[in-house]
């Protein structure tokens, strides 16, 4: 059709995905786009098995456990930012995009990812907010979405994690994103009964809209 530049392959692996598997898949997608920068973008939408990840420059001080003996698997990965926690009930969106098609500006990209979450919240009639100097999306002082990305030659990986209905207990073992004074939140505390299945289409729609992409199943 000649419109590949606005196509994105949507992958929604079912169940709870081990972090290593999703990371491997992202690296394959990134490699594919590195080899063919004109090729279609891809986006992974999934939920992880419980785990912790550290950005490449993350400070282990923000772990409240012994890194040699973590309560859940711990990964140091090729993204920016401090430690975060993934768990069931949290939607994780990993766009593998050629950012040169989206402004070639990493900060702009972070703001656009925040906007996607703000758009999702707004479709749920909630007013998400940015916090100056702190990447992420907040609702009434609680952090609902964490964002961390990495790029090679403008091909992105990693992305955003939105807490929908997850158990927040796992966050107690860390200082999420190195921010100790503001708590982490989840959407069910505002919309009781909300499930990740209900939020998935909203997240995909907001993402496709914001990035002008046509998502098609891979």
């Amino acid at each position, binding site marked *: *059709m000649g*419109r590949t530049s*606005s196509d994105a392959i949507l992958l929604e692996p079912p169940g709870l995905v081990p972090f290593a598997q999703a990371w491997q898949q992202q690296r394959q997608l990134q490699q594919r786009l590195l080899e063919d920068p004109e090729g279609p973008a891809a986006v992974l939408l999934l939920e992880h098995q419980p785990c912790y990840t550290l*950005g*490449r*420059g993350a400070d282990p001080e923000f772990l409240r456990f012994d890194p040699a003996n973590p309560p859940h698997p711990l990964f140091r990965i*090729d*993204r*920016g*930012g401090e430690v975060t926690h993934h768990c069931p009930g949290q939607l994780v969106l990993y766009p593998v995009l050629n950012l*040169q098609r989206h*402004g*070639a*500006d*990493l*900060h*702009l*990209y*972070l*703001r656009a990812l925040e906007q996607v979450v703000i758009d999702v919240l707004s479709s749920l009639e909630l007013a998400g907010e940015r916090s100056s100097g702190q*990447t992420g999306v907040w609702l009434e002082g609680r952090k609902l979405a964490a*964002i*961390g*990305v*990495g*790029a*090679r*030659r*403008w091909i992105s990986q990693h992305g955003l994690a939105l807490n929908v209905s997850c158990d927040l207990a796992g966050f107690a073992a860390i200082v999420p994103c190195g921010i100790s004074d503001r708590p982490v939140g989840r959407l069910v505390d505002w919309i009781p009964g909300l499930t990740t299945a209900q939020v998935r*289409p909203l997240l*995909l*729609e907001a993402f*496709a*809209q914001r990035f*002008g*992409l*046509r*998502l*098609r199943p891979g």
Partner: protein
Amino acid sequence: MTEGKVVEWLKKPGDRVARGESVLVVESDKADMDVESFQEGFLAAVIVGAGGTAPVGETIGLIVETEAEIAEAQAKAPQAPAAAAAPTPAAPAPAAAPAAAAQAPAPAPAVAAPAVAAPAPVSVAVSAPASSASGRVVASPRAKKLAGQLGVDLGALRGSGPHGRIQADDVLAAKGQPNTVPWVAEGPGPAVAVAAGGNGAAAAGNGAAPAPAGSAFGRPGETVPFNTLQNAVNRNMVASLAVPTFRVGYTITTTKLDAFYRQVKSKGVTMTALLAKAVAVTLARHPQVNAATSADGSAMVYPAAINVAVAVAMEDGGLITPVLASADKTDIYAMARNWADLVARARSKQLQPDEYSTGTFTLSNLGMFGVDRFDAILPPGTGAILAVAGSRPTVVAGKDGSMRVANQMQVNLTCDHRVIYGADAAAFLKDLAQLIESNPESLAL
């Protein structure tokens, strides 16, 4: 981005560096970027060590062409504090001038080619994805575009974005335009008052901004002159009184269309795009309904294309009809994107005349407000306009006496009777209904 933190050097001084190989990782905020060498050679010296921060454009390391040059470059290079904890101001490269990487919006540092034969250390600078600290104007692409269109000097603006980056809103504010987005609803046909508040609570599954409850242009006791756009719309509406029009209504079951809409919604397809596509595909088989009376009233004009215009109300009064050109031949996804773009530019009043004046058939949709029926005034120069009301669950009686609940909406076609006769209108509506009722999936083909 004005500065970056060196997270990690992936190469040690003395290491061979291949072209395209990652040399280091730079972090800014929550984003990491692998910085690759555009040059084959050897990493001679690290000037800003891991953990250090450098402003964009500073030299943070030296790459040389041959192994023999390493020692010389190292001798000239300032000592790299190993794993500096504190931000380390980086010194400029000793011999060669730092490559122009700072100004380049290139992804990786533009490692300039050492042109001279003498050992020419090449600087590795932190790349500047969109901006630079060195007095250059830093503005978002949209701000730049707007500034060009509105004639605003970016150099004179203070940006409100991160690190003073100039945003589109700053440009609009400088031009005296409100930086809030005017209310634009996909909505009222000419016959309907622009303040379409009414059942506004039922607003918009399709991204239209929620309507304020009953807007007005003036306060009680005031007389407010029409603005330019309102005057233009008024002239057209008065001109339409010279056209002998009649109206034909039809009830269309939308249960399948609604289900299909839910499937494609996540791909950015709006109900407006689906309706415009359905109308266009049906018009292709009913060219008489796409025709119009010529300006002098002497002939029937058959347009070369099917251009579906969709009425959009402007917050500050009047309405505009952005055009989905060749809607019968454009795929639904492209059309949805075109539409989003047209509405966005209608908001900022950037539509070109051919983008709102070349419609051959008009669609006016008040469905998002829960309206159950209305009719529309025919725009001059066209043969017909379709008023689309909201879809609602309705008890439907079958021919055999059975009852079921189905989603139904009323549509009302206003036609220029000189060109379109009742039978033409009825046949068009029957086909449109059949397409929407039985085969909405075909709209995506």
